[in-house]
């Protein structure tokens, strides 16, 4: 097990460097670097431009710039934002908390919504329940989240006025949990919808697969109650592929979060990314992109491990 983990981590290292090199190379193509902004100002002399480019390290060859950037990053220094002059790291950590809260709530909601649908439609295959949940999951996967978000806003915030229109807290109530929950519920539902459709189908087909197994027939033959058979024997075994799916989906949620956060002005990483792109604030954009890459690699490893814990047939050697 230990050997497996260390090997998994070792394999991720070249991938990590590959991603950072690619991201760095592409971003060096960016127009509108601080130097170019200076160049557009006619009053600035040649010497001043030279001085600035030495100060920013832009006179050095690309690979030296990369190593410097990388070295800084490994010590937790992602540079300073062009827009706010704050350290990029602080801004990212601020946004990360909000995004994390949103994503976790969305995952929990997605499971709560799709488990009953998935289980029932597997138990009553091709009956009413099954049809309802398949139509539901079709709509859930096909509705673009920003449109659904706007419709929700229209109904719950504008018409019914029961939920706030956006943001994370009411002003002056930063520690009020109830107000936080009120702000959280809509974006979390919208974000969870992205997964719900696929998740229902996943649970359904995985359960149908397991229900054919011999040990399920044995459990029934033993005279166990249907509830026990479904929960202890079928559900537990059919959750294995579901967990893998969730593990792969959680980093992808960061992408969906960009749109949801924009609709509900939720102050997370996505909103930060959009603002930074609009302001050509490259250190922040670069920082978020690299951070997401790290998150993806870490989640892939975690998923692998959980997979092994759930399924004792998998051996790590």
């Amino acid at each position, binding site marked *: 097990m230990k050997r497996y983990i260390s090997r998994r981590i070792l394999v991720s290292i070249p991938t990590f460097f590959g*991603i950072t090199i690619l991201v760095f190379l592409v971003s060096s193509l960016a127009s509108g670097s601080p130097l170019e902004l200076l160049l557009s100002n006619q009053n600035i002399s040649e010497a001043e431009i030279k001085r600035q480019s030495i100060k920013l390290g832009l006179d050095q060859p690309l690979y030296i710039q990369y190593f410097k950037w990388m070295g800084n990053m490994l010590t937790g220094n992602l540079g300073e934002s062009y827009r706010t002059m704050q350290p990029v790291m602080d801004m990212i950590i601020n946004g990360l908390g909000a995004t994390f809260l949103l994503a976790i709530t969305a995952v929990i909601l997605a499971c709560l919504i799709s488990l009953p649908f998935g289980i029932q439609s597997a138990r009553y295959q091709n009956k009413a329940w099954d049809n309802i949940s398949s139509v539901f999951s079709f709509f859930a996967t096909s509705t673009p989240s920003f449109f659904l978000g706007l*419709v929700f806003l229209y109904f719950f915030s504008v018409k019914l006025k029961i939920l706030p229109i956006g943001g994370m807290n009411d002003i002056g109530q930063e520690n009020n949990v109830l107000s936080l929950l009120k702000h959280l519920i809509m974006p979390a539902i919208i974000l969870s919808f992205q997964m719900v459709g696929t998740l229902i189908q996943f649970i359904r087909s995985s359960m149908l697969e397991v229900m054919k197994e011999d040990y399920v027939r044995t459990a029934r033959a033993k005279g166990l109650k249907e509830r026990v058979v479904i929960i202890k024997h079928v559900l537990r075994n059919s959750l294995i592929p579901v967990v893998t799916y969730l593990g792969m989906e959680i980093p992808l949620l960061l992408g969906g979060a960009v749109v949801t956060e924009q609709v509900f002005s939720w102050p997370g990483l996505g909103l930060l990314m959009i603002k930074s792109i609009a302001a050509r604030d490259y250190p922040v954009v670069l920082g978020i*992109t690299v951070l997401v890459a790290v998150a993806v690699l870490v989640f892939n490893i975690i998923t692998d491990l959980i997979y092994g814990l759930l399924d004792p047939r998998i051996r790590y050697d």
Partner: protein
Amino acid sequence: MNNNRKKSMFINFIKRFCKNKLAVAGFIVLVLISLLVIILPPFLTYSESEIDPLAFSSPPSSTHLLGGDDVGRDVFSRLVYGGRVSLFVGLLSTFISVLIGIPLGIIAAFYRGIFESIIMRLSDVFLSFPSIILILFLVSIFGPSIITVTVVIGVLGWPLFARLIFGTVLSIREKDYIEGAVAIGETVRSIIFKYILPNAIAPILIQITFRIAAAIVLESSLSFLGMGVQPPAASWGNMLYNAQSITILTDKPWMWLPPGIALLVTILSINFVGNGLRDALDPKTKIS
């Protein structure tokens, strides 16, 4: 394969597809939408960017079927032109994905070894990375436009097709008829075109359908964020951009409801068709 057998297979496929009523309905809706967005534009009174000062934020009327938007452009015209953009981006970017993904997948499966490790490892990374973040990053570098969005979505879609064909090739490369083909000295090229691609056509077709839907959603999300198709050019996504302002969301539903519904109906139809294709092309599913 002789012509008669091909024909009967095709008829069989049509029959199976038609059993799925939702798929047929989806197909009809898609044909209608495509015809509308292709044929209608020359007959429209207003172009997508034409400003009628009288139509500024005006509700639907006889001159402007769906009203005017916040700068006085005709919403109905923009809806039609926006549909063109969405379908164009969806189709072209998927075509790009196929064009990159299929050859890479075949190379990985055919030559194995180092090719396989590099290509498949790369596809893992691409697949697990949230594409909207990657696209936003790239768009921030290359600037937002229809071309950037199409190319970037297209390039990012390659692993789906590479993986699919990789799996198919691996599963048939050990078959006797491939060995036979190698033994009688057929070239790699002819093996690929005569034996491998025909076997893979069904799953690829299904994947293409779903990818088109996904690409359209990606494009409209980007445009909604203001990072995709830029006004005055219309796109269903950027028509919804304005609804982020609370007055438009509250009082002017004609500006944002039509593009949203058009998008939903299109995506739903494509997914229904994809599902129907899957049932019709997979010989394992029984259709009663």
